[in-house]
């Protein structure tokens, strides 16, 4: 299935892109998305313990099962306010 992954702040700089479309196996989870980018980008691997994942604009746990067409956002620790 195809999902769009969008990156913010330090995650965007780690990957060098603000959004990427990836092809994942069926039954892929949020965790698989983190694996995918952590294995390709050292800087992403470093911040991985600290990021949260949102799917279609809601936070999810890392074992969340993705669906074709989902928008997955990689959310580093926020600093609004």
């Amino acid at each position: 299935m195809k999902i769009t992954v969008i990156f913010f702040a330090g995650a965007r700089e780690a990957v060098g892109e603000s959004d990427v479309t990836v092809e994942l196996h069926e039954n892929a989870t949020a965790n698989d998305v983190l694996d995918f980018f952590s294995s390709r980008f050292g800087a992403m691997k470093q911040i991985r313990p600290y990021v949260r994942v949102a799917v279609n604009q809601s936070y999810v746990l890392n074992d969340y099962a993705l669906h074709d067409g989902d928008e997955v956002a990689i959310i580093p620790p926020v600093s609004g306010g």
Partner: protein
Amino acid sequence: MVCIQEEKIDVQEILNSVIVPEAGGVDVFIGTTRNHSRGENVLALSYEAYVPMALELLRGIEKELHLRWNVHKVSIVHRIGDVPVTEASVVIAVSADHRAEAFSACRYAIDTLKKDVPIWKKERFENGEVWAENAEAKLAEKK
């Protein structure tokens, strides 16, 4: 009312949006950008947001305030882009019959915003730049 905007925040306008004839007290929190961080001078500050999700979470906070406290009106406005020192990055205003509720609800709103709402601040120093991380956001990960 919730809003994410690049323009300078007009506090009076926000006050006007929450003051109603039935309300006796308004509490307003204003977050301003500071000229120092991590022991260094901050030259410039810039905010970015995951706008649709941030707005959704801000609307959720507004709704929660109405459910948990007896408040009349809530306004939460966050600025993105460059925010010069002393200008407001965020303004939260809550009107209520009684001030205790205005204070508690306003405090809860800024605490929750700092913990969860996908907005990020980049601080630029003389020797580089860094993405700030709220202490509240780091705690949230451990859940």
